[in-house]
């Protein structure tokens, strides 16, 4: 044989590998299970459907049948995992509709494609497994018979092996045995191949569509980023409170304490201390106000994005041109994210860009639709999308299923664009 030795090794080893025989067993279990299930599902569906005009009888029967196919789908996922090592993902929580009063299927449930796919799976389980078992068993049997032909060739009537009505001479029995070896070597591959095809089918009928699986993976990632962003934000607030207002209040209390002690003997010194404490208190107020404004400005809730952004622009140290055009007010969450994007971008512009002016454009397209935000400046560029500030922004934006793009070549200009669903 011209095959590389490694392939030969595999082919031989596959004759006795657990995977081959588990696949083999898998087909036969499938036959048994399928034969049982079909007697529950088909009568259940027929009685349920016929009884539908008489809603009281039909619905619970249909419901019980669907509950059974639900359960069967779960059981089968487990069986595939055990015998074939194939993990068929279940439907993510909350993506399927359920039942009323335990037995009455909700109407959504009856309209769901997944429901009928499970039913289809339950009905076809028996025949499909039967076919797979028949083919697997057949290949093994034919292979074994061919290999062992020289041993019993003499016993066959006519002293030879009959093929196509002709007679095979004993000398040719050896050649058949050699061909039988090839068939036997192919048998594990056929058995396993059928199992793989079976798993693919089960995945298609029992699992969520791959787009949903991808969506779930994407959501898991974005949730992680949102949690990270929220945690970073909490830390920033904690640090700001601790370094700012809290220190000021400590200083204030200290100065008032010293003033209290001085009032008796040195009234002028006491007055100076009270003056200083007064200043500390006002500074603490300013710091707290700025902090709160950075978290969520009240004007955003009261008057919307336009008013909040114009306040933001007015406080910016460099001139900012704001243009807002929205036919409808977006959801509060989207407004908050949009405000955060613009606030953070303008902070960056003021800190790093050396720009002489900036521009903010917010446009709403349709409802539900997209809220497009663009912040541009005429600065030196070179903003790093992986930096703490911008990646935090991206986290917040993807957290609401939006998209953030940063364009900032060295030499400028910088354009930060976000698209949020609204």
């Amino acid at each position, binding site marked *: 044989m011209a095959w590389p030795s490694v392939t030969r090794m595999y082919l031989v080893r596959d004759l006795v590998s657990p995977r081959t025989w588990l696949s083999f067993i898998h087909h036969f279990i499938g036959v048994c299970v399928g034969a049982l299930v079909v007697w529950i599902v088909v009568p259940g569906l027929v009685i349920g459907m016929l009884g539908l005009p008489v809603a009281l009888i039909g619905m619970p029967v249909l419901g019980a049948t669907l509950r059974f196919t639900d359960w069967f789908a779960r059981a089968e996922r487990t069986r595939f995992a055990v015998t074939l090592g194939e993990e068929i993902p279940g439907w993510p929580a909350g993506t399927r509709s359920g039942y009323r009063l335990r037995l009455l299927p909700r109407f959504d449930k009856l309209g769901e494609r997944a429901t009928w796919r499970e039913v289809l799976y339950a009905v076809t389980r028996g025949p499909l497994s039967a076919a797979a078992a028949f083919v697997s068993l057949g290949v093994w049997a034919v292979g074994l018979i061919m290999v062992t032909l020289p041993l019993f060739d003499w016993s066959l009537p006519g002293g030879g092996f009959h093929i196509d009505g002709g007679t095979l001479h004993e000398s040719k029995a050896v050649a058949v045995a050699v061909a039988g070896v090839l068939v036997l070597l192919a048998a594990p591959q056929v058995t396993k191949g059928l199992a793989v095809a079976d798993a693919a089918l089960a995945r298609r009928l029992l699992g969520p569509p791959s787009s949903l699986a991808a969506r779930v993976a994407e959501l898991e990632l974005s949730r992680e980023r949102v949690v990270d962003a929220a945690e970073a934000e909490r830390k920033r607030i904690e640090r700001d409170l601790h370094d700012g207002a809290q220190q000021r209040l400590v200083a204030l209390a200290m100065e008032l304490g010293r003033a209290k002690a001085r009032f008796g003997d040195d009234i002028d010194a006491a007055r100076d201390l009270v003056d200083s404490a*007064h200043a500390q*208190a*006002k500074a603490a*107020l*300013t710091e707290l*106000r700025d902090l*709160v*404004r950075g978290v969520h*400005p*009240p*004007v955003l*809730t*009261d*008057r919307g994005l336009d*008013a909040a952004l*114009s*306040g933001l*622009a*007015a*406080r*910016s140290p460099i*001139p900012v041109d704001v243009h807002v055009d929205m036919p409808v007010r977006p959801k509060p969450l989207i407004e908050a994210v949009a405000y955060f994007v613009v606030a953070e971008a303008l902070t960056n512009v003021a800190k790093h860009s050396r720009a002489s002016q900036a521009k903010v454009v917010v446009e709403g397209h349709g409802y539900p639709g997209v809220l497009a935000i663009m912040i541009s400046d005429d600065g030196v560029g070179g903003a790093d999308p992986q930096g703490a500030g911008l990646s935090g922004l991206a986290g917040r934006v993807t957290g609401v299923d939006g998209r953030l793009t940063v364009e900032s070549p060295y030499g400028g200009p910088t354009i930060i664009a976000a698209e949020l669903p609204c």
Partner: protein
Amino acid sequence: MLRVAIAEDSVLLREGLTRLLAEAGHEVVAAATDAEGLMRAVEACAPDVCVIDVRMPPTFTDEGLRAALVIRDRWPDTGVLVLSQWVEERYATELISGSPHGVGYLLKDRVADVTEFLDALRRVAEGGSALDPEVVAQLLARSRSPLSVLTSREREVLALMAEGRSNSAIAETMVVSGGAVGKHINSIFSKLGLVSDEHGHRRVLAVLHYLNGVTS
């Protein structure tokens, strides 16, 4: 002595304000905890001026602001001084839309500077105006290009005028003579193309309408 009505939902601040005003020789005729209570008090006592917190029950958004607008409309002789933890140019614009007579909008922090606060309160009660420097800064910031014709000194005077201060107060703040302030004001008015023979509250009106016109 002024007759003052207070609307403030926080006990601490309500009591503090009451005490502060009493110590300054004013009479607090009513201390309400929400907008509705304030309206009833104004109806019953006809105070000279109301001190109103922006955020009050039930929604804690802009009840105070809306109450102030209603009071201005129904009792034009009563001044309204709105206090807020934050000042926003948008709220100021809503508040002074029409006329800035007897209107004030200040950060709560300003209460800590008692003399200045009482001065602002008196201005509002007398039909003048008192805008927080931070609001004025926002208004000025939003109208950068047309104001670039002014010198920095003139912009300073413009800001103080917009806050609602008199010539003598402006002169005192900037540590210059009253005549110098007058000269600055004439120059500002001619540069911005405003009628310069207006005085007092009418002058504030002109300035604010000018700023408002270029911002909105």
